[in-house]
């Protein structure tokens, strides 16, 4: 059912949800007293700016005194073609081609505990020293701040939104307003932990409590992090929406007068889908994928803890805003002509909703350890897709079937050899390596762990990890410790090999030979031995071609239809199976159940004693016919 925005039923639902959240009766998200934000913001669609006032209060959580605050000013990444972001994106002329493309954030005032500190602000570039990058700023404090002491920050700012290129900005009347205000960096282990804005990295910040008022033209439909507590008609063609959010570490919002609003309660969660009119046909696909994700996560990991969820379909020309996660709000994406068998809207929705757990609730550092959110999320997304849509879960079209493992292997084999999984996002070779490694290699690593320790135990272990670290900021070491606790210490050397290096995992069947065992020659003058049935020596040699050593199963099939399985620890370079019997080996397969999906070459995992030719000829004949057909077309031109 599609309803106009602000319909009474929706308001009532949100109010109830908000009251529940405030009373703690139905919400499981804790408050975060250490950091609070109060932001008043006004969107000017013509100027494409957001003018705002920010008031933040931060309590030093403990440790040595600090003498400065660190602020993310990530919109400045779009300020010129020489920023770190634009340099890494290799978009030297993009701003020339798009005069409305640039973005920046200007601070009009900056007061710390009431004292003007704007002049003291200095830009810092810890990652690359790029003098043209102003995405990270240091604000010296008037006096060192001791443990448990609070500091208050007041900033007037103007955020000029870029044309949508990457995650934030405007595209016609569509606005996705993210990384739009001066945001305090994360404070961990007695120090600020922050990085400049990079092309291949996302975000990291501390949990906070938020009260945000958003003023927009009355015709705009708005979606946001948090829950709307009130909406005022300002009588001047604008409206103001008051929003409250708790236990989230970022605040993003979207606005577009064209949005169609679809409200549903899915798996007990009030879900609002903001869909573009030309994608309305795909609303059911978005909603079904939302249901699948919420139900599976509730079953496998833990239920969605927040009182609302917004799913956003970006406007035309805003593809760069799609497929992105923010707390309680995700952006998705589709194309009107996409066939049902190409499950792009489903996978984007399930992936981005997965980030509500891996990034949102379990708030690991997306910049320094992207594998913790992207990799785990990619793995669970694959499990959900495969379990829901079966073989061909990602693509099932024109006879082509692609599932999660095939997609992950494709990416890993193309670009996943450069960096260890544990590399910081912006330290990786390039964006291709980032995607192949942080997303897909990690998913294959987890798939391999699932193969060795069991798929269900691994999901249960990830659930343990999520519950242990909910609303906290774990590191890779915390994940390893949690998995070792859940799966046993044997998982540690496996993870160490797969996560910390670039060595490959590749087992191969090198040889399948069968020789007849000779009958004993009669001794001179001796008795002729009695005749016995023919006996054969089947020799199977399995080889470890990569550096990674993991136990692996070997299947040997015999000509009488029988099979044997045995496990090799994978420590040596090769392993031989010698079997003498009346049967002959037909073929051997190493890792017959694909329990090691990280194996780099599945073709060499099997060997037939007498290779077939019919399969080869089927494919080759098809190629021949295709070529013939193409040549006929060419000559008929």
């Amino acid at each position, binding site marked *: 059912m599609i309803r106009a925005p602000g319909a009474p039923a929706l308001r009532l639902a949100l109010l109830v949800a908000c009251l529940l959240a405030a009373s703690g009766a139905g919400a499981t998200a804790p408050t975060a007293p250490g950091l609070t934000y109060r932001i008043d913001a006004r969107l000017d669609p013509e100027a494409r700016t957001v003018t705002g006032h920010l008031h933040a209060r931060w309590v030093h959580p403990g440790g040595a005194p600090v003498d400065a605050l660190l602020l993310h000013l990530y919109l400045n990444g779009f300020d010129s073609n020489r920023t770190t972001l634009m340099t890494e994106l290799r978009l030297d002329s993009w701003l020339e081609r798009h005069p409305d493309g640039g973005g920046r954030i200007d601070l009009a005032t900056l007061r710390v505990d009431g004292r003007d500190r704007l002049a003291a602000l200095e830009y810092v570039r810890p990652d690359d020293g790029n003098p043209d990058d102003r995405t990270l700023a240091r604000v010296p404090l008037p006096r060192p701040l001791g443990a448990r002491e609070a500091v208050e920050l007041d900033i007037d700012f103007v955020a000029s939104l870029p044309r949508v290129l990457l995650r934030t900005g405007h595209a016609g009347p569509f606005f996705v307003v993210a990384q739009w205000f001066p945001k305090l960096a994360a404070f961990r282990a007695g120090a600020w932990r922050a990085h400049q804005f990079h092309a291949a990295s996302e975000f990291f910040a501390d949990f906070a409590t938020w009260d945000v008022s958003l003023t927009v033209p009355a015709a705009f439909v708005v979606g946001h992090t948090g829950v709307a507590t009130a909406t005022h008609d300002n009588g001047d063609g604008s409206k103001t929406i008051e929003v409250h959010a708790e236990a989230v570490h970022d605040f993003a919002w979207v606005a577009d007068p064209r949005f169609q609003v679809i409200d549903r309660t899915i798996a007990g969660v009030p879900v609002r889908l903001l869909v573009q009119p030309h994608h309305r046909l795909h609303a059911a696909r978005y909603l079904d994928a939302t249901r699948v994700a919420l139900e599976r996560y509730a079953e496998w990991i833990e239920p969605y803890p927040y009182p609302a969820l917004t799913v956003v379909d970006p406007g035309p020309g805003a593809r760069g805003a799609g497929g992105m996660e923010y707390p309680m709000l995700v952006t998705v994406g589709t194309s009107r002509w996409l066939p049902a068998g190409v499950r792009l809207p489903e996978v984007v929705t399930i992936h981005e909703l997965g980030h509500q757990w891996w990034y949102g609730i379990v708030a690991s550092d997306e910049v320094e350890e992207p594998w913790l959110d992207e990799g785990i999320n990619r793995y669970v997304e694959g499990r959900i897709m495969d379990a829901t849509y079966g073989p061909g879960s990602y693509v099932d079209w024109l006879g082509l079937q692609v599932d999660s493992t095939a997609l992950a292997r494709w990416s890993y084999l193309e670009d996943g050899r450069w960096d260890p999984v544990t590399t910081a996002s912006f330290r990786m070779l390039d964006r291709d390596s980032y995607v192949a490694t942080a997303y897909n290699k990690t998913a294959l690593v987890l798939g391999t762990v699932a193969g060795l320790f069991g798929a269900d135990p691994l999901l249960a272990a990830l659930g343990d990890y999520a519950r242990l670290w909910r609303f906290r900021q774990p590191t890779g070491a915390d994940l390893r410790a949690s998995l070792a606790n859940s799966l046993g210490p044997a998982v540690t050397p496996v993870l160490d090999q797969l996560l910390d290096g670039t060595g490959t995992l590749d087992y191969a069947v090198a040889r399948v030979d069968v020789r007849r065992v000779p009958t004993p020659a009669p001794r001179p003058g001796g008795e002729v031995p009695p005749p016995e049935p023919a006996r054969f020596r089947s020799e199977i040699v399995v080889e470890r071609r990569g550096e990674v050593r993991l136990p692996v199963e070997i299947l040997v099939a015999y000509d009488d239809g029988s099979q044997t399985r045995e496990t090799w620890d994978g420590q040596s370079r090769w392993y031989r199976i010698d079997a003498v019997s009346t049967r002959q080996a037909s073929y051997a397969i190493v890792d017959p159940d694909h329990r090691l999906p990280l194996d780099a070459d599945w*073709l060499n995992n099997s060997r*037939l004693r007498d290779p077939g*030719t019919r399969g*080869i000829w089927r494919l080759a004949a*098809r190629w021949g016919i295709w070529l013939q057909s193409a040549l006929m077309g060419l000559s008929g031109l």
Partner: protein
Amino acid sequence: MIAAYLAGARLALSRWALISILWLITAAFGVAFALAGATWLGDALDGAMATKSLLHHVDVQVLIDLWAHHREGLRMLLVLAAVLAVGHTVLWWWLDGVIVAAVLPSGDGFWRRGAQLAPVMARLFGIGVCVWLTWSLLIGGAAWGLMRLTQDSFTAHVWEWIGGLAAALWLLGTAWLIAAHDQARIRAALSGSGAIASYRWALGFVGFGGERAFALALLLQGSGLGLWALYQAIGLALPLTELIGLTWSILWGELFLWLRAFGRVWRLAAQRKLQ
């Protein structure tokens, strides 16, 4: 137009032996490529289970591993395909002449007559390809320019509209150019005029609606498309590899290619009736 359409079909049927030879010649190129493909696949698969499993199921994982670990061989296969395409094109300059000569009223000695026509057919092919490439570049360039112009547009589907319109125009223009090319081939054989003169005449003939030449060409090309759709529909409805086996699967594919050769002769036979 309909009379020419039907008469062309009758004439083409009477030339079934020629059609079979044309099909065999093209099939030789297909077989050569299939042999090379099979050799490469045999090498790459190296006795793996896929040498058998591919018969029943083309697993995407096999394709991924072939691409990831054996792509150099795959590239060589593409080079071979390009070489075969060049050889096939050159051979068909002669065979085009043979087909045109075979559908002329005095259709005897068409193999020899085809050889005499080969040079003009080659020149016509060159002109035809140049004109077609120009047309493709024009349409492609216009579409690209419009997309650049509208890159700041936030209207839904604007690129789809531009792309769809460009594709439709390109297809229509290509069909028109094929009609002109066919008429030029027939003209060159009938009048003995040169390639440029024949092509110029054919452009005017098809362009000014001579004897409904373009309508007939569309009907013939549409028939070919219909044949292809029918073939695909039957092919999808029949699980060939399970029911009938590999040999019949290949023969089924070759039957379609025989029909394409038939369509080629039919096209020229029918269009000859207009001159």
